[in-house]
Each structure stands twice: as C-alpha cells, then as structure tokens.
C-alpha cells in the first residue's frame, strides 16, 4: 500500500480526505503547519505527501524546499497562478485543486508515487501561457522552450483529456505522454528565466 502523509490545516477537509482515501492508501501521518510537517514527514517516511499550499505559519513551497527527497502533490483551493507556479518551481511533482473528485485524487497520488508528474488542466494552461509570454531569446534552448510535442500534450491536458485519451489521439503510448509531461515539469523547475516568476506575480497583481 502506498504510504500517504497529509499536510493540511483545514480539519474538515483533512477528515474528508482521510475518509475517502483511507481504504486505498496507508495514511501514515498528518501535520497542520510548516514546522510540524518538516519535523514529522522524515519520521513517517511516506511515499507521497499531499500538501496544502497555504498553511498558518508559512506556505507549501517552504516544506517542499526543506525536504528535497520527498515526493509532493500540491493541493489547494487557490488556483492563483503565483501559488501554482511557485510550489511547482519549488519541486512539487504535481498540482491539483481541492474540487477534484476522490477517484481522480487517488489516481494522481498513484501517478506521483510512480515518479510521474500530475498536471491539472489549469496548471497546463498556466504553463502554456507562461512559456508563450516569454519574449527574450532563450539562453538555454534545452530548458527554456517547450518542444512542439510538449505543447501539444499540454493543450490536450488543458482541454481536459486524460493521459490515456491523449495517447490515443496522438497515436503514442501512455508512457510517452508521461515522459513529455515529465519533461515539461523538469523545464518548469530548472529553467532560470526570471520572466517565469515575474509572469506569475504579474498575474496575481493584475
């Protein structure tokens, strides 16, 4: 059974998740603040950490940065570009909103456990928007641009297609879809184009 740790300060939501996932996953711990999460997660040794982006004593990205060897799936009601991009850039393997259905959430946890990336339609839209808005020439084309294929896959995700459906549409295997999404995640995390952060904060201010 996959070991899941929950970082969530909203007690109502936390107990909901426990009820929904308790059958299928081993829930090995629960923290309600950044300090608690950083202290407890290494002890519980989970496979996947479900992480709320907003916590009372700080934000999700701090937890992600403090524990680089842990796999995080970010979970939030926010949908604000800055929150989404920041937690992914900090190292989270995926981002889903709290309105996600429980089978979909279970699926996302399994995917993160297998080392894949999980993109919600909105995150895919943000990434397309962010890379489309980059005006300066790429310094490192390997990291600073999306390939046409990656863009295509992201567009399907933004349209609400599951990986399986994307694979069928593009006549490629699900594994290939996964590797494209993984490639996008890597670029998103490693590119040091400052415009990406600026883009996110502008979206927030505007």
């Amino acid at each position, binding site marked *: 059974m996959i070991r899941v740790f929950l970082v969530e300060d909203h007690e109502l939501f936390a107990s909901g998740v426990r009820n929904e996932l308790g059958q299928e996953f081993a829930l090995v711990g629960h923290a309600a603040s950044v300090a608690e999460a950083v202290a407890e997660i290494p002890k519980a040794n989970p496979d996947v950490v479900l992480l709320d982006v907003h916590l009372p004593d700080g934000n999700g990205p701090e937890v992600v940065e403090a524990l680089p060897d842990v796999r995080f799936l970010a979970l939030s009601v926010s949908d604000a570009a800055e929150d989404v991009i920041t937690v992914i850039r900090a190292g989270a393997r995926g981002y889903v909103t709290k309105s996600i259905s429980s089978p979909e959430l279970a699926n996302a946890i399994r995917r993160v456990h297998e080392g894949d990336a999980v993109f919600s339609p909105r995150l895919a839209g943000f990434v397309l928007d962010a890379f489309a808005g980059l005006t300066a020439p790429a310094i490192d084309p390997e990291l600073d641009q999306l390939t046409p294929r990656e863009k295509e896959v992201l567009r399907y995700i933004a*349209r609400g297609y599951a990986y399986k459906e994307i694979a069928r549409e593009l006549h490629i295997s699900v594994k290939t879809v996964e590797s494209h999404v993984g490639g996008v995640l890597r670029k998103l995390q490693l590119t040091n184009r400052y415009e990406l952060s600026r883009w996110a904060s502008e979206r927030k201010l*505007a």
Partner: protein
Amino acid sequence: MFRRSATDRVLTGVAGGIGERLEIDPVVVRLGFVILTFAGGVGLLLYVAAALVSRRPDLDNPPPPPKTSTRQAVAIALVLTGVLLALRGVGLWLGDGVVWPAALVVLGSAVIWTRGDEATRARWLARMPGWIQDEAESHPRTRTLVGALVIALGAWAFLSSNPPLDLFDNTPLAVGTVLVGTAVIAGPGVWRLIRQVSDERRERIRQEERAEMAAHLHDSVLQTLALIQRTEDPSEMVALARGQERELRTWLYGKTKPGAEGSLSAALDAVAVEVERAHRTRIEIVMVGDCPLDDGIRALVHACREAFVNAARHSGARGVSAYVEVEDDLVTAYVRDQGIGFSRSTVSSDRHGIAESIEGRMERNGGVAVIESSPGRGTEVRLRIARSRAT
C-alpha cells in the same frame, strides 16, 4: 549570522538587525559604529563587513523591538572603551583630541535615546529614596538634560583640546561643532517621530483594508450562506455555492489581465456564470492569452455559450470544461464534456442548436466549427476563428 532588520532601519538595517539579535537597543549599536569610525575608520569597515555577512530581513515575522537594561548598557560602554583603547595602542587613531570628545558626544546621545527596560527601572526605583522616584517620574526631561550636558561637554572638550583651532579665530568650526551637537541631541528624536508617523499611516491603511474586506464579505458571502440555509433543494444549494465561489475568486485573485472589461475572457466568464445559474452545471474555463472582442470573437463566445448549454442539458455529465487559446492571428476554443455523447444522425434536423447556433454562426464569421462526439465517449466542440487585422 543575523538578519538585517526590515522594520528598524536607517541605512540598511544592519544595526537594527544586530540589535534584534543581541536584544539590545539598535541606537547603542549605531552609536558603537559611529565611535569606532573615529578610530581610523574601523567602524565603517566593520559596518560594511556586517552588511555583507548578514542575511536579508525576515519580512513575515518581525521580532519585537529590543530594550536595553542598565547592566547591558554599562557592559557595552566598557567593551567599547576597551576596544577603543586597544585600537589606540595599535595606532588606528585620529588623535586624543578628536576621539575622546566624540566618545563623550556618543555617550550623551545614548543617554538620551536608548529605550530602557521598564521592569528593571521599576525594580531600581523601588529601592531609591522618594525624591529620586519623583525625579524619575519626570524622567525623560532629566535624561535629555543629562545627555545634552554630556554632549556639550564633549563639544567643549573637542574645541578646547585643539588649541591651533582657536575658538575665536575659527568661527566656522565653532558653529559646526554646535550644529553637530544639536543634531546629535535632536536627530534621533526627529527620526523616531518620522517613523512613528509612517507606522501610524501603515496601520490606518491596514484598518481600511480590513473594513473593506469585512464589508465585502458581508454583502456577498454572508448573504449567500444565509440563502443556502433557507434553501431546500440541494441542486439550488450547489448553484448558490458555486456562484459565490466564482464571485469570491474573482474578487480575491482579480482578473487575469488589466482592462478585462470588453475582453474575451470577461465575456466568456459572464457566459459561463449565466449558463451555470440557469442549468445547474459547473463550467471550468482555462484560458491562455486574451484579446479584445470583435465580431468574430463575439460569434465564438456565442457558439461557446451554445455548446455549454447543450452539454448541460443533454450530456448528463457533472461539468463542462473549456480551453481557449489566443494566438497572434487565431483564437481556438474547445468545449468538452464527458457525458453520454450522441451520434449526429440521431439528432433530428429541425433542432437548430448545433447546425444554426454553432456551425452556421462560426461559418458566417469566417470561422470553423467541428463537433466530435460518439455515444458513450462524451462530446467536444472545437471552434476556430481568425483575429481581425485591425486589432
């Protein structure tokens, strides 16, 4: 290392940060740097070094302003004297006639401007005879008086210990010394006053924001919650909650781009809200880019609306998702549901929804509409239209 102070800063917040770290008054730290600067510029070097090794301020958790106990003050004075003597021995020195008067001036300034520890003072006072206690009641004035005297003494010592610069032959120097003395006596007070005024302004802004937030929540969220409690129909509750969520989100995170009025994203949002209300469904729109409305774009918005309504009415799916991408010369939209789907041949030809409102409308405006659906696999409406050159 230590963090520079975000709240207590004159130049870079280094002294404020050291003060917070050591829990002594930053004024003392600042004066320490000043007096050490007279010793061959050592203070200046130390300040630059401290600025380099310090970390940027922690904006989220500013520490409380530190107080200095009398014991700490004496200890710091002794340490500083010791350091000065050591530097004098090494030869980093501007001369006895400059440094010792400057030290006196600094001491006076410290007497006037450091914030004392109230608890310690109360303990001390309790052991004092009555007339000293009375005196301490009017304490700020006494402090200022003593400090000013010490500073004046320093200024006098400076002038008299530099005989070549005779007082009467060198009026500019005398005037300069008096000015510096006055600045040292009054300067920190003026500085503190300015900070106090700006603190008050910040607090007022914060209060206004809080009031605005409360007013908004009252007009929107509380009203909706009251409505939900009075509603019997679960689907009505969902619709109310969903409408409120959308409204609150827009208010909290703002629109994606400035000047959203009259833009494609605003028009789509308005259409989505309308259809959600009327048909009790959930519409998620993901947008990449945005553009102003023109005839072609308006046709696309209407076609999207028709697709939303069809999905809500006929698909049986929980929600509808839309993806809209604006490129330099082209706008593409995909409206998708994962409902029951349909096959074109089973839809009677007198139903105008798809043929007229979606395909016809797009074609008349030079666009394309493709509808892909099969029973059991949901429906996707794909729309494409060129952007007019004028924009």
